[in-house]
């Protein structure tokens, strides 16, 4: 086979790190930023160069021509999104004209969900707040329950578990007063999730169990599976492996029988982690691979779920010292996260890549942590992710023998966790710092 030389006339792509610096931080330009990231490609000249193993988003290249070509489709998507929002609003007006308050709330909530789907959480919150304001004045309290649940879920997604719990508490009280079983079960799930996020295991257990009881009483099949899955994950976190396995087994039976592909993929992802923690590495790998198959079979392909499964599979391979396979899996996850503009997932991938380099005692691995922190500052703006990035960076530096810098990063992580009230994470960090100091 002949080597085909790269065309010297082809323009050198602009590095993403440079392109992002040139893009003003304006809300109106966020879709362009997303397009820039998803259009970026690894610079072909770097694939086999010594910097190849250290490639991060910032070092990918973007061709202005590529952006120009995709601009039309991107603008079309934006315009379709705005049109859908306008339509939802007009739907709300229609409902108002009909004096259908529940219809108004439903339309406003729909607009919020549309915003959430494209990652515009702040805007989604405004829609949900409007829906709640309307719902509060209605005699029927179910729309209010729905609005509160939407706000609670949004809070949890943004790491605001205390606010989330407050919304779910109100939702539960109203749902129970209204005999709204679906609302009550959803609120219990949310309250359990909020407790779990704050490492309040007994609280989470109590809420999930209550939710499960309510779901069983009202025969809500999908909710039963979801709650069993959550109870399984909780039991695993508390170290009760047999209870975890049992919950997951029963949930899997339900999901598989119902052909709930996405739920099955999520469950197998959890089961893989449980098995990996228990040292059943081959079984865990099989669970993750099956999870990928279910994720693919699901009607709407959830890329963040696929990235999460691949990250877990990579972590498993890392633990087995199968570094080549782990790296391949991480790069696949990176590609998916970049193409779908999933910055949070990308941060996770880079932290794991940094850990991999740490295992190899590779001083060049710091670039992954720096990139993750940069993403936390500029794109994701999530303090919890930033704290985790600093924690991992500190561990990496310590592993490489740079105690002073390692401690500084851990301290920074602790500082951020304190502002977030994450006592579990602070305890973990304190333990680590004591161990390192000793």
């Amino acid at each position, binding site marked *: 086979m002949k080597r085909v030389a790269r065309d010297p006339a082809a323009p050198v792509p602009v590095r993403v790190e440079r392109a992002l610096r040139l893009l003003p931080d304006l809300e109106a330009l966020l879709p362009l930023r997303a397009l820039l990231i998803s259009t970026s490609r690894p610079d072909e000249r770097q694939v086999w160069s010594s910097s190849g193993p250290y490639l991060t988003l910032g070092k990918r290249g973007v061709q202005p021509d590529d952006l120009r070509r995709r601009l039309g489709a991107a603008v079309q998507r934006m315009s379709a999104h705005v049109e859908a929002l306008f339509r939802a609003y007009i739907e709300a007006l229609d409902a108002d004209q009909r004096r259908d308050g529940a219809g108004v709330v439903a339309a406003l909530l729909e607009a919020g969900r549309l915003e959430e789907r494209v990652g515009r959480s702040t805007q989604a919150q405004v829609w949900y707040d409007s829906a709640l304001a309307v719902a509060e004045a209605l005699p029927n309290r179910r729309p209010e329950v729905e609005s509160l649940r939407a706000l609670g879920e949004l809070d949890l997604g943004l790491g605001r578990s205390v606010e989330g719990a407050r919304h779910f508490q109100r939702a539960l009280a109203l749902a129970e007063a209204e005999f709204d079983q679906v609302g009550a079960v959803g609120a219990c799930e949310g309250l359990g999730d909020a407790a779990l996020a704050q490492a309040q295991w007994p609280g989470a257990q109590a809420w999930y169990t209550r939710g499960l009881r309510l779901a069983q009483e009202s025969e809500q099949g999908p909710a039963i599976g979801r709650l069993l899955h959550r109870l399984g994950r909780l039991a695993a976190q508390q170290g009760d492996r047999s209870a975890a396995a049992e919950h997951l087994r029963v949930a899997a039976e339900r999901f598989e029988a119902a052909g709930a592909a996405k739920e099955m993929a999520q469950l197998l992802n959890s089961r893989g982690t449980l098995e990996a923690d228990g040292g059943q590495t081959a079984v865990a790998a099989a669970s993750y691979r099956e999870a990928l198959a279910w994720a693919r079979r699901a009607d709407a392909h959830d890329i963040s779920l696929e990235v999460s499964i691949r990250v877990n599979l990579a972590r498993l391979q890392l633990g087995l010292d199968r570094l080549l*396979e782990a790296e391949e899996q991480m790069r696949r996850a990176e590609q998916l996260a970049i193409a779908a503009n999933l910055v949070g997932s990308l941060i996770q991938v880079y932290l794991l890549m940094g850990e991999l380099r740490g295992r190899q005692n590779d001083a060049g691995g710091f670039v992954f942590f720096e990139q993750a922190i940069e993403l936390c500052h500029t794109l994701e703006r999530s303090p919890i992710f930033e704290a985790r990035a600093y924690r991992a960076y500190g561990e990496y530096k310590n592993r490489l023998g740079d105690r002073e810098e390692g401690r500084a990063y851990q301290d920074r992580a602790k500082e951020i966790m304190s502002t977030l009230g994450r006592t579990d994470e602070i305890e973990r960090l304190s333990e680590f710092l004591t161990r390192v100091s000793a």
Partner: protein
Amino acid sequence: MLRVIAVATDRTVVGSAIQTLRQWASDAGVNFVYAPDLPQAVRELAANRWDVVLAFPGDRPEEALAWWRDALRGAQGNPALIAAVGRPSMGLVLRAERLGVLDLLTLPLQREDFLRAIERLRSAATEMPLPLPEPHAEVAGPYALVGQSPAMLEVYKVIARVAGSNATVLIQGESGTGKELVARAIHVHGPVASGPFVAVNCAAIPENLLESELFGHERGAFTGAIARRIGRFEQAARGTLFLDEIADMSLSLQAKILRAVQEREIERVGGAEVIPVNVRVVAATNRDLREAISQARFREDLYYRLAVVTLRLPRLVDRNGDLLLLVSHFVKEFAGRYNKGVASISDRALELLRNHPWIGNVRELRNVIERAVLVAETDVLRVEDLSEDLRAEETSLPDRPQRALLTLAELEARHISRVLANTNGQIGSAAEILGIHRNTLTRKIKEYGL
């Protein structure tokens, strides 16, 4: 007996088609199982060893084939992938080849096509093992330089000449030719061998951090400088600082490097103290620095400071006879690391390696062998152990049975596809190389489904 598992991705495969397949498989002496959906197939692949996956990828075949390529990496016995699709475009055929799909069959399936695919698979089982020679490394340990080609002998001579001095060395060569290994060899054989060898990859580090990485920073020097950092120049004191991919830095930073190399002193970012540094600098690049100078992207004064001695490394394809030695060296390294008993390579696998263009040079070869050793299940490295990209090149080997003689259109589509891959999809550049108008190229891309 060959074991084939057929998998329907989109539930469109009807029972009667499976019945027919089962009959054909039985006639061909093949053990045949059908999995009606992906999750079941993955369970089967995890539980048992299979030789072939016959996938029916459905509506989005490209996506499905890429998925299968990934899924089969974790399966026992490296099963080969055969796909059955309705009316494959030329683009799909080419992409399937690149993904290492053994055969792309057309729906509705024909008995002859199925049997021919099985026959191809059987013929692959006739590989002859070849013993691997004992590799001789010029430098022992993990940083061994392997090769006895005339091109490498020249390199060894230059290393021997320059290592003893303190001269700054500029190593040039394509990616993966071993520039860091040569820098280490210069360090190990030089006057500062007892000192540290510190390598910095200038292209890997974010632009805004490179200065602080090289010269260090004081706490609070900039947002994010939450701890003091000792830079690489200081870390390399009384040793060697290897600046890899030197062309990849801003002009302002080049000026600072020049000052550090000339005056042998640095200042940490945010610091006021001038710190003397005593390091030997070895720099490397895969770019043409003279061209970069002419485009005002690289400082000429820095070039002359770095290129006191210049060493050019050969491409792997120009190192006649070294490929087998390198294969042998890497097989030994990875067989030891992964506790595998691989001791030889098959004639066909070696032929594939010899015919590969090795754009990534030795680094690419190392990667290929590591993967192959990792997945090998016997003591012979076979074609099935090689990556999909390499396996896809099997059809281009001389004296190999081709699926069929190519039509002119097929040949044209293949060539266009290759040129597009090399221009990173840039239609304008590809049209220029092909010597046709870009509108003609756009039409052909559409026509061939590329």
